[in-house]
């Protein structure tokens, strides 16, 4: 009998590269990895179940705690979906502030993803650099919202806190520091020979495959699928004249570079927002009512969809969340990890698609 697989190697659920519990089973021949299977289910808490029957002020926090890294976008999509149901208008100042906070969150998430990648390929210097830059971003987040993670900034009809002149100035100063540093680290990443060895041409996914697997977020955009950026459909981003970042290589390197570029893009978006920030109120009021909606937004990892049905008092009757990571994990196992040359590349490729297990399993 012909032996097809030498050994099946499990990676995880507790593994130094994974920050969250997930298990990969790699079937290998020699060093080569033939297939990979993902085993999920270590984080299932039943958040959608406990959301039912609750008003927005409780569901908002549960939505936020679907994922701690991209908490702001979960909050934003949920709140904007509730506003869509109830026909609540957002004051323009609040809409711009939402973009500011959302982009800050995207920055910290992208920097963290790149940190994880560098950590996984054992480039710890760059990893620590990035982690330190992330602290500056978190400082800005804390300055505006009062907390570093799980900010609870948006409420139906507006945001919770206004931004003062000094805060805006401090924010811009912080962003300048971040910009300078990230620019240097991007150069480091792009020119380093060692990183290139581990990244260029590893885990390649073509545009066709990406569309087939419905890859979203930076993973999709690295494979030249710019239309997967849902910020193109958001009214505030349209006003800001947003164009997505896009690369064509579709390998680990491209995915990280897309995230670096998006950090730079976020900085410019925030600057634009602060520059154009209209005067006026930050809360418009308005109570949540009954209705049904499917609403999407662009999370740091890609397309985030909420389906919500509510009753007359704005309590959630039914809710379904589709998070980006599930598409990316599938795309990763079927199209990227296939036939990589070593087990070490499995972890780095998997991390490069920036999987978020807490999002996926809820």
């Amino acid at each position: 009998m012909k032996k097809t697989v030498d050994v099946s190697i499990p990676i995880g659920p507790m593994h130094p590269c994974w920050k969250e519990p997930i298990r990969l089973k790699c079937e290998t021949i020699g060093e080569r990895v033939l297939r990979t299977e993902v085993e999920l289910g270590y984080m299932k808490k039943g958040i959608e179940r406990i959301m039912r029957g609750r008003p927005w002020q409780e569901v908002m926090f549960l939505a936020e705690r679907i994922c701690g890294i991209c908490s702001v976008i979960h909050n934003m999509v949920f709140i904007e979906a509730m506003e869509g149901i109830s026909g609540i208008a957002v004051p323009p100042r609040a809409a711009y502030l939402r973009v500011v906070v959302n982009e800050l969150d995207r920055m910290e998430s992208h920097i963290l993803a790149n940190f994880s990648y560098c950590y996984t390929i054992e480039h710890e210097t760059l990893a620590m650099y990035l982690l330190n830059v992330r602290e500056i971003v978190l400082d800005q987040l804390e300055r505006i919202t009062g907390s570093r993670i799980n900010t609870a900034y948006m409420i139906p009809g507006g945001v919770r806190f206004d931004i003062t002149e000094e805060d805006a100035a401090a924010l811009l100063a912080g962003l300048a520091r971040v910009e300078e540093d990230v620019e240097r680290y991007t150069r480091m990443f792009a020119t380093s020979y060692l990183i290139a060895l581990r990244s260029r041409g590893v885990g390649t996914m073509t545009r066709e495959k990406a569309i087939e697997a419905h890859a979203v977020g930076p993973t999709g955009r690295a494979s030249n699928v710019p239309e997967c950026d849902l910020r193109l459909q958001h009214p505030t981003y349209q006003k800001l004249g947003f164009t997505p970042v896009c690369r064509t290589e579709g390998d680990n390197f491209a995915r990280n570079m897309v995230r670096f570029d998006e950090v730079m893009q976020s900085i410019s978006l925030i600057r634009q927002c602060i520059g154009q920030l209209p005067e006026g109120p930050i809360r418009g009021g308005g109570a949540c009512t009954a209705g049904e909606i499917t609403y999407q937004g662009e999370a740091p990892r890609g397309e985030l969809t909420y389906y919500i049905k509510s009753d007359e008092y704005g309590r959630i009757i039914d809710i379904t969340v589709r998070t980006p990571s599930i598409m990316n994990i599938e795309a990763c196992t079927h199209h990227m990890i296939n036939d990589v040359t070593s087990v070490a590349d499995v972890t780095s490729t998997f991390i490069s698609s920036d999987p978020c297990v807490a999002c996926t399993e809820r």
Partner: protein
Amino acid sequence: MSLLQKLKNRVRSKSIHVCFVDVGSCNGCDIEVLACLAPRYDIEQYGIYVHNNPREADILLVMGAVTPQWVDKLVAIWEKIPEPKAAIAIGNCPISGCVYNRRDSYIDPPAAKHIPIAAQVPGCPPRPTEILAAILSLAPTIFENYEEKKR
């Protein structure tokens, strides 16, 4: 107290190996523990070294409301850690289940139901400084004179 014991106390309080396990959190505490690694907080200057092997750890950081998948695995990980050891609950989830602790959810908090928890760091998530302070304040008291206490 023997000289050897004094030496052990000294060494143990200056070299704390930490292993962390995420038993169903939202990631918030996870990344705050990661942030401790950042040069700003620089966990290693205090002699705390993070790595994810329970067999060489002294302190287990537990994050997350315990999901059914982890109930037995958490105990297994705890028992792999060599003595002297301690577990710290990071964040609200292992202390009370946080916002997930409602009827119909799948979780089984608190973590103290499954393994002995020596200290708790409340917060959702706690700041890295709070995590650091907890580890630093706990470690010497737990490990001090371990051999003598055991007797």
